[in-house]
């Protein structure tokens, strides 16, 4: 029997992997992908609780999140492309124009 706890654990695992990816990877594309992982971990959570509570609001939220993530991916990839055209790199360590 798959209980909400399993979903929780899966979601937490995905979340940890996502956070770790955001924190540790240098390639901005991969960081982007890690953010998608985090969002999807949240989605799993929402969907799991929605099914457990028999409440559709969680499903709706998940769809919202997916839609926002898509928009975010579009904007983010656009920025990355623009950046890449200027700097010829996607290494996040070189994206430090704002430092002091």
């Amino acid at each position, binding site marked *: 029997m798959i209980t909400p706890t399993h979903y929780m654990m899966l979601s937490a695992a995905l979340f940890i992997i996502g*956070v770790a990816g*955001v*924190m*540790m990877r240098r390639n901005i594309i991969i*960081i982007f992908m890690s953010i998608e992982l985090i969002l999807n971990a949240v989605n799993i959570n929402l969907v799991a609780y929605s099914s457990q509570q028999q409440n559709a609001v969680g499903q709706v939220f998940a769809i919202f999140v997916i839609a926002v993530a898509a928009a975010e991916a579009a904007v983010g990839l656009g920025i990355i492309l623009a950046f890449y055209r200027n700097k010829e790199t996607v290494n*996040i*360590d070189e*994206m*430090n*124009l*704002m*430092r*002091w």
Partner: protein
Amino acid sequence: MQYIWLIPLLPGLGAAINGLVGIRSFSRKTAGYLACTMMVAALGLALVAFVQLLGLPAESRAFDVTLAQWIPVIPQQMHDGSYGHFEVTWGFRLDPLSGMMLLVVTGIGTLIHIYSTAYMADEPRGGFARFFCYLNLFCFFMLMLVLGNNFLVMFVGWEGVGLCSYLLIGYWYEKKSASDAGKKAFITNRVGDWGFVLGVFLIYSVFGTFDFRAVQNAAATMPVETAHFGILSAICILLFVGATGKSAQIPLYVWLPDAMEGPTPVSALIHAATMVTAGVYMVGRNAVLFSHAPMVMQIVAIVGVLTALMAASIGLVQYDIKRVLAYSTVSQLGYMFTAMGVGAFSAGAFHLMTHAFFKALLFLGSGSVIHAMGGEQDMRRMGALKKYLPVTFVTMFVGTLAIAGIPPFSGFFSKDEILAQAFAHNKAIWVLAVITAFMTAFYMYRLIAMTFFGAYRGPAWEHAAAHAHPADAKLAAAHGAPHPADPHAHGHAAQQDHEVSHGIADAHAAHDDHGGGGHGHGPWHGPHESPRPMTIPLMALAVGAVVAGFVGIPKAILPSGSAIEHFLEPSFTAERVVESNAGLQARRESEPAGRREEAAEAEGEQEHELSTGVEWGLMGFSVLVAIGGILLARTFYQTNPEISERLAERFAGAHRTLSNKYYVDELYNGTVISGTMASGRGLWAFDRNVVDGAVNGSSWLTRFGAWLSGLTDRALVDGAVNFIGRLIQESSYWFRRVQTGLVQNYALLMLFGVFAFVSIYLFVR
């Protein structure tokens, strides 16, 4: 006669024109004519006014003219508590006393102006106009002094004549001794003026008015201060201090002998005939005040007679012809004060008038002699001038007889009057006055003997044909008048080793633009008679010196009594005062009906009538004394000149003391002058150390305060501002390290933040 104000203003106008325009652009002739015309006009007006004055009844002989208001009417509380008002006007008053002075000043002034046109003819053009400007200005102020009807107008004249005296003594201002003498005269006079001003202040505070008549009338109602030294005595002593300065009495007489540095006409006009008698005039003007202060009268008499004696004794041994006359003047002024002091006001004023004639005559005569000798003033270098200067000799001889008191010359009557009054008043004063009279006769005849008789002792001269000269002179004159500023300064004087030299000598040396007239002389051609403008005033004054005394023939000779005494008497007594509150109305109150009582009361105790016999005896005695003095001087200096030398050696100490004028100048130098200088230096040191020190100290304090405040500003205010700036800079130095620019750092921080908040939410809640 409402035009008496014109009399002073005419010479004033002349002075203004000559001073403003003349010095720059008038020729000698224009300047001289202008000045003389003004004086002649003033003399004419004065004569008309005087005749009109004589035409009035004896009791009401006075003209009052108010020219303008000076200090406007001010209400004030009178000394007796009532309310009145106070005003000062430019008011003139012609009464017998001022009438007499008026004639003396304008008459002798005119003669001396005429004399000066010739005497000063060798001066450079501008200097000539300057001289006449001063001379006219002097007459203006002197007439103000004489005619003023209140103390303030008199004071204007009083100071003005002092100023002119200063200017004229220092006329040859390039000469150090002349400018020093001018300063000495001015400063010494200032001491006297100080007393005079204080006296006038006191008069104002006591009487509340400055008007002569009002003051006299008010004083007449006050008790005579026989036993105590009251307020009237204080006023009188202060006024007398003023008189001692102006009229050269002990202790302030020292300036007058030095004043001889001025041109001789100046000495004649200012320092013999007019200005120096201002003090006598002022005492006479305030006769009522003085007769209410017998103690001060006593002082006046004593000072007068001592001055007379002392100056006469100094005059015995002087060799400078003008200095003899100067000491003689001091001595005669002493006589006048003696007369005032013994209450014989009219005798003093009478002597003032006769003295003006014969002393002006003697001074002008000495000027003529000096002129003749080419600037020489030392009598030891003269002698036997009788044959060269006949007119001068005769006129000066007349003057000498007049001053010595030989009848019927004018000095006899006036001096005899004073001696008689002194005899009646105080025998000791009489004795001193007689000794003085003896000395006067002696030194005056000594002057005549040394100058006109005996052997010629002066420098030799070339017997060059004087007539070759006028052509040169004319040629030089044609070259234009302006005299190059005296390049030959004192050459002539130095060459002749003169003891005293002045501009005459210089001018004679280079002269020339004096032009024709037959009087031109380049080198000095020996003694010669002076030109007519100089001899005519001499003759006129000689006539005056003879006849001036006839107005005062004493009762012993003429039963009707002394005319001038009756004439002057109203000026010396108060009017009958109807209201006790004198104020200004009393002046207009010209009803002098019961004047006699006051007069008797005022002068009663001093007026001891002498019997006719005593008067004749005194007269005879004083004539004997005068003749004795003359004969003794004749023996000493004319017949046996060696006697005087032997006597001088025998009594060397006394002779030296007299020659050095009793060392009074040295005494004053040692005490008053050096004391003043020392105190001045002390005050200067005080000024520099204490006053300047205080100022500098306060500035130092201010600077210190400013420095302190600046320090606070820098340290505290700026410090706080800088501290905050520094704090922010320092802290941001540390905190900005947070901004690594590494996105993952931010993300990590965010993660920690979330973690922290969640932890707080979970555990702290």
